[in-house]
């Protein structure tokens, strides 16, 4: 049959081929439709898929291809124009999409391929990191081991424990076969096996120290691998197996004397111990770097720990020694105290016991002198009296001296008339001097102050002693006493290196020179003069009697007065001069009212000033407070001002002798304060006197004051005179209520 141009063929003649094509197209279409479904399904399942857009394109491409093949099925038979147009549309679309997809795939496929390479790269990196982490962990463990070891080593201060622990811990950490410590012997020529890990009690196995290997180890501070055949390494009995590697390290032994503050004595230590470590013999283990480092660190720590232990031993020894010394000192002190107490008791008893009979003897002898006596009897009585006087003086002197010696004597300081002292001495010495026909002259410098502060009695005693000596040792001639204020250059002339005068404002140095024309003294004997009981045994002095104590006591007194005393003489028969310098205080200026343009106020009976009297004044009114304060300051008082009752209670103390209170201020409960002050100071003599200042002139106020416990009442305004007399009365009678 001829084929016509119409598009409606019947079943084509090649039936079988057509049928197969038909079926294949169908299945292709099916497959084409199912692939995107599968893709969509699985992609939906997966969380991450970066190429969604590609997928959509691909899907579209496949779907359209499928559609094309599907529509193809209809073209086998006679088909209409619509089918043809649909087919054409589908094919066009398919062509478009597939071209686009092809273009896209050009970009995407290299990416997808590179993912694979990146995966390989990451896997390699992960493997490397794993290796590194393994290393770090090993190091960390090593560090931990070191710390633990150090902690173990340093937790004890006992040498043996330290060393034993070191070996044990090292052995455990490094899994050693054997670990040993060789210590230098006392001679320093050999190393002795002192501690081992496995053998319980090592035999005293020694090795000479000057071995090349040992020297090599000692010369470096690193752990050194040594041969197992070295004498120090032959620690295990030779076995079948190859001995493991051996490492040796030096351990510096530091002495106490090697510790300097600033430098670590690396160079000065000469003694080392040797630590030998052996790996297990049947393993193929090698010494790793970090293990060697660990060994070095441990060796250093051991050195330090050993030195700490040594220091501790030293200090314990020193402390024990100190304790012993303390005990001994304590004992000595107690013994000394007992001795002093015994001596004081003895002196006290002797003082009294000796004085009583002496007193009786002297008194009765003098009484006897007054009665009728024959000349012989009189002579005898006089001798008795003289001797007993001397004995009494001796007793006094001994007592004084012993008190002076142990420093228990204190000067009685007071203000006294200096001129009167000299006059008194002169008066006392004149009778004896006139009997011996000696001329005594007194010369007081015009700049010598009339009053001075010092110990009057002892000063007089000293001057009297010196003058008395001058009189005693002069058979004829004259004695001159001069006194003046010493200036600095004369002070320095005192011929005594230890006398260092210090000039100050309220002190002056009194210089007294007593020159006699008597027997003089050999200059060689002068140093002995002031020592106790030493006396010149020259003929001229034998009869003069007297103990040898006088000058010694004078010297002690003068020393107490921060002065100096010495004697100058040009030789026997040339007289001598005794010079004494003492430090005296200037008397305080009395605080009178200094008014250059006012006539002198008629001074009241009683004190004119109350120097340093501490008073407290409580007054709220500023003006009257100022006036009262000035008043009291003028009288020399030490005034504390308060403006309120709280301040008053806070500041009042037992040092304040008087408290002036302004009581007519409303708002200040003065009576309350009085009561509180009474409570605060329970002892009467500690409590300050409470005086009320008031302008109220009624009797009620006065009664209230008395009832509240006040010691006084004064009416304002107060004049200077009134305050003065009030204070005088107050301090004398402890109460003063002004008549209202």
């Amino acid at each position: 049959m001829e084929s016509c141009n119409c598009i409606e063929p019947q079943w084509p003649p090649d039936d079988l081929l057509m049928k197969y094509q038909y079926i294949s197209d169908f299945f292709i279409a099916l497959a084409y439709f199912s692939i995107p479904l599968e893709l969509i399904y699985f992609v939906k399942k997966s969380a991450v898929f970066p190429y969604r857009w590609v997928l959509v394109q691909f899907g579209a491409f496949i779907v359209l291809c499928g559609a094309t093949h599907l529509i193809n099925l209809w073209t086998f038979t006679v088909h209409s124009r619509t089918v043809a147009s649909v087919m054409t549309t589908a094919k066009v679309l398919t062509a478009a999409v597939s071209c686009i997809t092809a273009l896209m795939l050009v970009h995407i496929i290299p990416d997808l391929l590179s993912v694979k390479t990146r995966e390989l790269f990451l896997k390699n990196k992960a493997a490397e990191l794993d290796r590194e982490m393994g290393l770090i962990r090993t190091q960390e463990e090593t560090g931990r081991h070191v710390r633990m070891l150090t902690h173990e080593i340093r937790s004890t201060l006992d040498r043996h424990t330290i060393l034993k622990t070191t070996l044990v811990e090292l052995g455990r950490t490094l899994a050693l076969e054997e670990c040993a410590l060789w210590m230098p012997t006392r001679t320093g020529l050999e190393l002795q096996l002192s501690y081992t890990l496995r053998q319980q009690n090592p035999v005293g196995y020694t090795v000479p120290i000057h071995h090349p290997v040992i020297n090599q180890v000692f010369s470096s501070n690193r752990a050194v691998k040594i041969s197992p055949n070295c004498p120090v390494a032959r620690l295990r009995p030779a076995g079948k197996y190859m001995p493991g590697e051996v490492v040796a390290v030096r351990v510096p032994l530091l002495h106490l004397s090697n510790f300097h503050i600033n430098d670590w004595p690396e160079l000065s230590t000469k003694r080392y111990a040797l630590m030998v470590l052996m790996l297990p013999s049947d393993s193929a283990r090698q010494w790793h770097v970090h293990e060697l480092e660990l060994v070095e660190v441990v060796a250093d720590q051991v050195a330090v720990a050993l030195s700490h232990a040594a220091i501790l031993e030293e200090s314990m020894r020193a402390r024990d020694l100190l304790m012993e010394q303390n005990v001994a000192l304590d004992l000595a002190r107690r013994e000394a105290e007992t001795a002093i107490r015994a001596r004081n008791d003895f002196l006290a008893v002797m003082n009294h016991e000796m004085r009583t009979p002496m007193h009786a003897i002297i008194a009765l002898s003098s009484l006897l002198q007054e009665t009728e006596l024959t000349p012989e009897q009189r002579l005898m009585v006089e001798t008795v009296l003289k001797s007993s006087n001397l004995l009494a003086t001796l007793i006094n002197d001994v007592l004084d001296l012993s008190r002076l010696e142990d420093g228990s004597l204190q000067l009685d300081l007071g203000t006294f008339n200096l001129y009167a002292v000299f006059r008194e001495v002169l008066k006392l010495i004149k009778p004896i001097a006139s009997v011996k026909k000696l001329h005594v002259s007194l010369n007081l410098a015009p700049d010598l102050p009339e009053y001075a502060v010092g110990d009057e009695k002892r000063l007089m005693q000293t001057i009297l002693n010196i003058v008395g000596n001058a009189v005693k040792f002069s058979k004829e001639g004259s004695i001159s006493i001069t006194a003046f204020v010493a200036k600095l250059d004369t002070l320095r002339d005192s011929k005594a290196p230890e006398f260092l005068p210090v000039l100050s404002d309220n002190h002056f140095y009194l210089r007294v020179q007593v020159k006699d024309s008597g027997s003089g003294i050999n200059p060689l004997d002068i140093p002995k003069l002031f020592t106790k009981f030493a006396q010149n045994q020259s003929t001229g002095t034998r009869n003069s009697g007297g103990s040898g104590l006088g000058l010694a006591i004078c010297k002690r007194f003068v020393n107490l007065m921060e002065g100096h005393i010495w004697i100058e003489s040009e030789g026997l028969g040339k007289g001598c001069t005794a010079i004494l310098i003492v430090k005296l205080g200037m008397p305080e200026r009395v605080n009178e009212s200094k008014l250059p343009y006012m006539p002198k106020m008629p001074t009241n009976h009683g004190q004119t000033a109350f120097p340093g009297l501490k008073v407290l004044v409580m007054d709220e009114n500023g003006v009257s407070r100022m006036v009262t304060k000035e008043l009291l300051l003028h009288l020399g008082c030490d005034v504390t001002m308060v403006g309120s009752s709280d301040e008053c209670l806070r500041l009042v103390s037992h040092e304040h002798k008087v408290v002036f209170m302004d009581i007519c201020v409303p708002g200040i409960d003065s009576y309350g304060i009085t009561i509180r002050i009474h409570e605060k100071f329970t002892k009467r003599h500690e409590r300050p006197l409470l005086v009320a200042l008031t302008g109220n002139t009624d009797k009620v106020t006065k009664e209230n004051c008395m009832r509240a416990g006040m010691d006084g009442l004064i009416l304002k305004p107060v004049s200077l005179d009134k305050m003065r007399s009030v204070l005088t009365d107050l301090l004398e009678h402890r109460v003063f209520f002004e008549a209202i």
Partner: protein
Amino acid sequence: MEVGQMQRRLVDYTKSLFMEGFLDAQFLQLQQLQDESNPDFVVEVVSLFFDDSEKLLNDLTMALDQPNVDFKKVDAHVHQLKGSSSSIGAQRVKNACIAFRSFCEEQNIDATLRCLQQVKQEYYLVKNKLETMLRLEQQIVAAGGSIPMIELGF
């Protein structure tokens, strides 16, 4: 004016103050307390008195201005003023204060206001006088003279 003349004028002036009762013996006490260690004592005390008194007078004026007068407070102020004036020797001020206080006790408002006026008047008078006297003293000291003392016969 030369020093001697100034001194005479000061003496006469001071004497008049005492005669007229502005100052009493307490002021002399103050002068006695002045010396080299405290050369400005009188001036200081007088200045303090002026300051205190001004304040007190202001307080008093305010207190009496209130619709409900607190007589206790007024009394307290007057008491202070009396204390200060008696400490310094301002006699007339002190007397005025005493009268003031008695009227305060009676709570007589009119009388207290009158008293306040009186006190103020007296205060200003004595202030004036004291200032004049102190100025004279300053002039004398500046001219190189010394302050003459006052001997009171009573």
